[in-house]
């Protein structure tokens, strides 16, 4: 075998590569396969949350806000438990961000509420003195794109087997199910139902009227997404 390899440089190179990769493979691959499993309690996004995620991306929130809590005492004190790779299992694409001009938002749903987001998006400096974040008033007028969100849900469900309509184990031992609507009309109806619950906690009359009339302003979708970040 060795004599044969010595006379065939290409296969020799391949054999060298296999030997050198071996240690890397047995050290990295099992760990990687384990860490990329969804963490218990990680749920896929609902239609409205996904629409909110699109609003987040559209407005480049990730340019100033990260979604990655590093394992340092100072960070976990402020933001909560450090991030695990399995928590991003349903993020396509992930929104880790690379710069924190504003604070991390990985677990913002744990310590901010619907009404806070509403006040803050209208006029950040009124809530956080000295904030340099601009106001995002158009979110209260623009309508969220439920069609695209639903299309993405169907796609990731078919292509990546994201578990919609399936029981997902939660941290407290219970099961939870995230619904994937059968038709686009149903998806709109479900999203509106979710939006109504959020609009009930809001104060902006225009937003309330729009939701009552069957429209979903972008701010409602964005808040649904923010509240889902836990």
């Amino acid at each position, binding site marked *: 075998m060795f*004599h044969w390899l010595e006379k065939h440089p290409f296969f020799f190179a391949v054999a060298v590569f296999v030997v050198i990769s071996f240690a890397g493979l047995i*050290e990295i691959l099992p760990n990687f396969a384990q860490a990329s499993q969804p963490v218990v309690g990680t749920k896929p996004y609902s239609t409205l949350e996904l629409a909110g995620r699109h609003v987040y991306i559209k407005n480049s929130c990730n340019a100033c806000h990260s979604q990655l809590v590093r394992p340092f005492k100072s960070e*976990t004190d402020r933001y909560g438990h450090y991030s695990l790779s399995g928590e991003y299992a349903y993020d396509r694409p992930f929104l880790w961000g690379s710069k924190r001009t504003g604070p991390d938002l990985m677990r913002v749903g744990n310590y*901010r*509420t619907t009404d806070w987001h509403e006040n803050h998006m209208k006029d950040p400096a009124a*809530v956080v003195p000295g904030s340099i974040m601009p106001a995002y008033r158009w979110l209260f007028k623009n309508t969220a794109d439920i069609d695209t969100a639903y299309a993405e849900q169907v796609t990731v469900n078919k292509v990546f087997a994201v578990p919609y309509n399936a029981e997902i184990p939660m941290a407290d031992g219970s099961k939870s199910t995230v619904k994937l609507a059968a038709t686009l009309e149903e998806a709109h109806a479900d999203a509106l139902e979710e939006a109504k619950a959020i609009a009930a*906690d809001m104060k902006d009359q225009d937003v309330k009227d729009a939701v009552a009339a069957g429209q979903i302003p972008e701010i409602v979708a964005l808040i649904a997404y923010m509240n889902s970040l836990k």
Partner: protein
Amino acid sequence: MNKLMVFGVVFVAALLGLTWVIAGGQMGDDIVNKLAMLGAVATATIAIFVALKYIRQMQTDKASGKLADENWDGIGEYKNELPFGWAVIFLGLNIWAIWYFLAGYPVNAYSQIGEYNEDVAAHDAKFEAQHANMDEETLKEMGGSIFIVQCAPCHGLQADGIDGKAANLTVRLEEKTIKHVINNGQGMLGYPAPMPDRNGLMNMNTNALITDAEIDAVAKYVAGGMKGTEGADVFAGTCAACHGPDGKGMEMVAPSIADFNPTLVADVLKHGKKGAIGAMPAFNNLTEVQVKALGAYVTDLSK
């Protein structure tokens, strides 16, 4: 002694002489410096004579031994025994590899999370030692700094609720809040029985359900710090049964509505709250000491 040997001795002497010229002046009495110098002598001598040995071998050795089967365009290779030292190192590496595979990597490897856990444990131990016996002033001061980070984003740096965007913590209750609680009930703070809404609130004085006018009166009375007489009778007839005649609450029954106290603050932090203004999430990430500190600080705010 041949020419090569003489050259070697001269070269070693030159090296050591050079070392002495450069570093000799700084030797002093330090034993470490002397040891280093001794090391330099040994290193130079051994290096030169090992090099000489091989140079001489190259000069005198003749090719001999058995040729290997392969030859490349007429150039062959002798079959040499594996040097003993190499064999020892090879076997040693095998043993080390098995140890590393089974124990070294899985058990002793560096882990970022491990370092984090050690960090946190060390910090917590230091924190607890430092704050084992805090007086009221230190507690309040600590509560103040926690407030800026955790509470001020909603309640404002002045704790005034930023124009009604969150509860105003400089007063215990505002009229709006009291009316909302009476109308809708409240059961979020973890007391065994929730407070009923207005359809469950009897006024003992009139033996009837509480009326709109009575709600207005008692809301003004409680918001005004329970002074004066207007609304006092409604309070005595309706609220005092659970909140106590002085409004300071009763253990396991109802919280104080006369003032903030550490228990009430701890309950709100533990359960979160939803009321007239909006929702407040639970803050279960705070430690016991931090909750105590916030309790002391918030209690002090409305005094």
